[in-house]
């Protein structure tokens, strides 16, 4: 068979072309080069070395091609433009100079894009983040789809870094100084319509529905068509790149032109950052520094400052910790137990309290029919109102429409009896923390549910095997420990007993993932992992109060260490009664190691009605509508009664007394096999208990701080306070051998 002429042409073409590109390619449509990105090795596009090299190659070809007047930059992946730079590329560097060089290469590439004589239109569908955004804003024009998946942002700060490829220099010019600071310092995602208002994109395109192709495919095609029109429009001057400035914009530009005003802004922003970060996070300050260098000393200094600061930040322990958390979070969003045999379609929740209703709220909008059962009409309607309010708040913020709210709520059934439980695939009980009640409930439920139904118990401290003791099918019993408020707290701690089947675990993880949770799966035992770590720290906090440390001072020291919430406030949030309950239970289980503070302090507080925020009084007095809070004057009598004579402790000692007990218990959980590994331990501590993210979790903290230094401190405290501070064996092992690390 003779090859046709057409084929032979293609063949000759191939012979002359360089080795086939895998990530970036382009085709010329009339006089527009459509540059398509697609990383074949990943679900998302990242600016990897390969991607960058091929991009430069393609860019050079496009510039050299006389048939091309303009270009469109688009991703062939349906749901992703560029998700960011390749983190591994940064982590592979050993010195800050190497990272600075990476940054400078990026800057150089985007500077060429920015100065391109042929206009380039970025056509954005899906995430356009970090390096992807820096790429897009170097282009001459931006078109984005209004899809919910399309978000723009500079999340580098959350990894302890800064936008290191010109972002700190271009953004302030594009969206104004305040807008740029807001984007870079919060790292938040910006939806397409907001981006248009901010001036970050020029034009919006609606996502399309079913047509002659699948919606995703056709939407990208449509985006490309519109972007090509724009590219042509720029070339033939129908679209002007210099936007007419509105009155407000002119005024704003004028005001920002005054140096004094700019200095005030730097000052205010820096003060705000210091207040929020307690100076524990270097990245925000470096971002301000880089922006300032560019605006005050010109672009050369600005770009240099950006590249150098980027290099410095990449070598900080904070960035290392935050990147570790990022990887951990990704790992904890996967189901390592496989696909469950049957997906949960009907979920029943027992107890419409804060927890129960919160679980309902995060479940009902995921296409799972949810039953919320309580024993009283009052309890039930309070819970239903909570779910409604949660969804209605989203409506007010315009993340969902009122129709979507109503449609979602149609999948929620509130009831007082067990009708319909014969259809339940999973029951989560969130009733009062009392073993007898839990036993009664499990028996009632097992009488009505089908054989495949899973019984999950939401408890913060009762061992699951004790609860499962009342069950006739313990392989279907599992613990699902949610954190309050359920719709805000990302963590879900799943507890398996040695009888829990693998499929039950897989199913619980699948439900949790649907609910949007970051999940750790831990072994059974008193307090599991999270509660068990928190308890000794709270015991130490109580001791400190007994020693006469003011609650406000205690809070300041803990937040100063990096905890988002102070220890005294945390006790109030958790509930003094719950804390007392847990302290007593765990005290019995673990003995004197969990001592320190006197449980009687908490018990007396509960007796007096100081149950924390929910009762209006705890360590503090809470007045509805008032944000500031005063120390509860009545606890002084209680503390006076149980007063301890303090040993001289510096502020730093106070902090390490709290933290070392937390960390030691965490390491012990790993030692005892409660934890599957240090990654889950770090994620659980940070996302569930607010362990300082800049330290990356207890295990990374030991690695960074040094196990030997920690053990040394603990031994010093041990001499004074006794076995509360005895380091566990695993920690001692790490102290002895400095090459031993939890994270490689």
């Amino acid at each position, binding site marked *: 068979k003779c090859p046709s002429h057409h084929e032979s042409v293609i063949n000759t073409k191939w012979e002359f072309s360089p080795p086939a590109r895998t990530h970036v390619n382009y085709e010329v449509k009339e006089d527009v080069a459509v540059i398509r990105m697609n990383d074949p090795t990943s679900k998302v596009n990242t600016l990897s070395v390969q991607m960058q090299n091929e991009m430069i190659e393609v860019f050079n070809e496009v510039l050299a091609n006389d048939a091309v007047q303009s270009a469109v930059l688009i991703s062939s992946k349906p749901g992703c433009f560029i998700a960011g730079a390749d983190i591994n590329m940064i982590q592979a560097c050993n010195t800050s100079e190497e990272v600075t060089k990476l940054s400078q290469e990026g800057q150089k590439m985007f500077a060429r894009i920015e100065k391109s004589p042929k206009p380039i239109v970025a056509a954005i569908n899906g995430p356009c983040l970090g390096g992807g955004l820096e790429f897009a804003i170097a282009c001459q024009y931006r078109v984005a789809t209004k*899809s*919910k998946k399309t978000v723009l942002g500079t999340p580098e700060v959350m990894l302890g870094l800064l936008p290191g490829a010109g972002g700190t220099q271009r953004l302030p010019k594009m969206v104004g100084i305040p807008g740029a600071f807001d984007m870079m310092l919060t790292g938040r995602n910006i939806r397409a319509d907001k981006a248009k208002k901010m001036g970050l994109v020029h*034009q919006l*395109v*609606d*996502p*399309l*529905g*079913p*047509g*002659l*192709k*699948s*919606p995703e495919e*056709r939407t990208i095609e*449509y985006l490309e068509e*519109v972007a090509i*029109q724009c590219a042509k429009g720029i070339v033939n001057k129908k679209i002007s790149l210099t936007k007419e400035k509105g009155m407000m914009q002119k005024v704003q530009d004028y005001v920002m032109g005054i140096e004094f005003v700019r200095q005030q802004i730097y000052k205010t922003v820096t003060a705000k950052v210091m207040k929020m970060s307690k100076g524990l996070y270097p990245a925000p300050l470096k971002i301000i520094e880089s922006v300032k260098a560019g605006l005050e000393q010109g672009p050369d200094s600005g770009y240099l400052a950006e590249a150098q600061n980027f290099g410095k930040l990449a070598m900080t322990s904070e960035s290392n910790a935050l990147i570790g958390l990022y990887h951990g979070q990704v790992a904890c969003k996967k189901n390592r137990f496989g696909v469950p045999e049957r997906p949960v379609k009907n979920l029943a929740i027992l107890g419409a309290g804060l927890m129960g209703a919160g679980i309902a709220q995060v479940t009902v*909008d*995921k*296409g799972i029919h949810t039953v919320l059962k309580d024993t009283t009409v009052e309890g039930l309607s309070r819970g239903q109102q909570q779910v409604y309010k949660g969804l209605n708040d989203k409506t007010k913020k315009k993340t969902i*429409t009122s*129709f*979507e709210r109503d*449609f*979602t709520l149609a999948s929620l059934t509130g009831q007082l009896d067990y009708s319909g439980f014969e259809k339940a695939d999973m029951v989560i009980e969130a009733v009062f923390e009392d073993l007898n009640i839990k036993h009664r409930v499990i028996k009632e439920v097992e009488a009505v549910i089908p054989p495949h139904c899973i019984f999950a118990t939401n408890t913060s401290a009762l061992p699951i095997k004790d609860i499962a003791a009342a069950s006739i099918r313990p392989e279907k019993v599992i613990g699902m420990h949610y954190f309050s408020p359920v719709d805000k707290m990302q963590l879900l701690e799943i507890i398996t007993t040695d009888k829990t089947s693998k499929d039950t675990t897989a199913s619980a993880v699948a439900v949790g993932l649907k609910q949007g949770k970051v999940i750790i799966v831990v072994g059974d035992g008193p307090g599991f992992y999270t509660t068990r770590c928190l308890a000794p720290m709270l015991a130490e906090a109580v001791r400190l109060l007994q020693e006469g440390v003011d609650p406000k001072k205690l809070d300041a020291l803990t937040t100063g260490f990096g905890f988002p919430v102070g220890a005294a406030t945390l006790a109030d949030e958790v509930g003094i009664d719950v804390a007392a309950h847990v302290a007593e239970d765990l005290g019995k289980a673990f003995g004197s190691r969990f001592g320190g503070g006197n449980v009687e302090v908490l018990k007396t507080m509960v007796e007096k009605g100081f149950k924390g925020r929910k009762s209006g009084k705890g360590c503090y007095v809470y007045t509805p509508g008032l944000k500031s809070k005063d120390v509860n004057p009545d606890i002084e009598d209680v503390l006076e009664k149980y007063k301890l004579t303090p040993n001289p402790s510096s502020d730093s000692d106070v902090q390490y007394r709290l933290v070392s007990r937390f960390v030691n218990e965490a390491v012990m959980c790993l030692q005892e096999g409660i934890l599957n590994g240090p990654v889950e331990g770090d994620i659980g501590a940070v996302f569930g208990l607010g362990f300082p993210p800049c330290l990356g979790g207890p295990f990374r903290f030991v690695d960074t701080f040094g196990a030997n230094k920690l053990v040394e401190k603990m031994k010093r405290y041990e001499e004074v306070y006794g076995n509360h501070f005895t380091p566990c064996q695993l920690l001692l092992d790490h102290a002895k051998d400095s090459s031993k690390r939890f994270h490689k």
Partner: protein
Amino acid sequence: MASMLMNSLRCCPPVNPAWAVQYATRSLSTSVQLHAQVQTKSKKTLAKPGVKNIVLVEGVRTPFLLSGTTYADLMPHDLARAALQGLLHKTSLPKDAVDYIIYGTVIQEVKTSNVAREASLGAGFSDKIPSHTVTMACISSNVAMTTGVGLITAGQCDTIVAGGVEFMSDVPIRHSRKMRKTMLALNRAKTLGQRLSLIGSIRMAHLTPELPAVAEFSTAETMGHSADRLAAAFGVTRLEQDEFALRSHTLAKQAQDAGLLSDVISFKVPGRDTVAKDNGIRPSSMEQLAKLKPAFIKPHGTVTAANSSFLTDGASAVLIMSEEKALAMGYKPKAYLRYSVILTPKTSCCLGDYSSSMVMSLFLLFRPAYGTPKVLARAGLTMDDIDVFEFHEAFAGQIMANLKALDSDWFAQTYMGRKAKVGAPAMEKFNLWGGSLSLGHPFGATGCRLVTTVAHRLLKEGGQYGLVAACAAGGQGHAMVIEAYPQ
């Protein structure tokens, strides 16, 4: 009602089970079962033994006028009254010979919310004839007709007047909710002090009025926006849309000039002239159409004012009877009303995933593509058997998208659960006397116009079967097979 539901269950096409379930639960289709009458002349008749034949005796409409023109000072029931009187006049029907009167309307005038009653009394019908108003967006008068057909089929009535009216020259513009709340509270206030404090609470924001929008309540997307996205999804170009709009206006003009639009009655508007013609027909040139800017999606959209239907005032009315009764009363029926389906969307339950409301709104204007194969299957016909097509033209882009969908195997397989496409209607049979784009589209009245036009075209062109298809907001639609009455 129950039997209708049962019918819809039985009539599910044996396609993939997921679809079948969705249809069973989501769609309420009225299947028209007709009683047998001896039909010998044509081999192809759709009459079935034991099924009552229902006929269209006559259909009329007022001229459809651009809103804000000659009808501007009327009220909706005045227009409906004119259509009813025109029907009475044309048929010489005794005013007490009607069993039931049903009207369709979309934007309701609150003073005459049962516009069917106000119009029929005003038109001189006996006050013993019950009358009610139905609403189902742009297929409201279609529903008025199918409701009537249902009443005849059920043996409750023999003679039905159905119709529709829309009056866009005046729409209810309301005070804001805040203002309404204050005014209602003012009603209940007992003391002067209470009244004064309520009046004092009125702020500027209270005075912003609420305008009715031609938009979906559930998605807040306007119809024009939705049509533009639909056109884009099917790759319908601006040129195709402009060409179709021009075709509609040109054909309408020809039909008007040739006197084919015989359903239009002349109407002496109180205080104004007599109106005898539709005034929205404006054949233009492609160059002029190309000059217009997109009306909804700017700047790259393709739907313009010229390739969309315009806001229209108008009313229509039809006389529907059992064949037996019509013949007994000495009428010569124009057509049989045969199979009819009303569809609701196949809602995808993927909230939060791809924004189901977005997907849903795309289905808004999309019913003809779904309704056509369904009603054909029920009648046992194919596209080729149909001699006359009358599709409602809400937007040129919407019509073109529907035609492309009907002609796509991929679409039929992916979204309709069919093995293959049914094919697009032949353009030489399609909307030959103009359509909603050119004649106008008074939302509530268009359905009766479509059915009457099919009957008239079958008579004129000598065809056997006609098909009506129309879409409506809320993702609903209607399709009906009409058979020529042997002459």
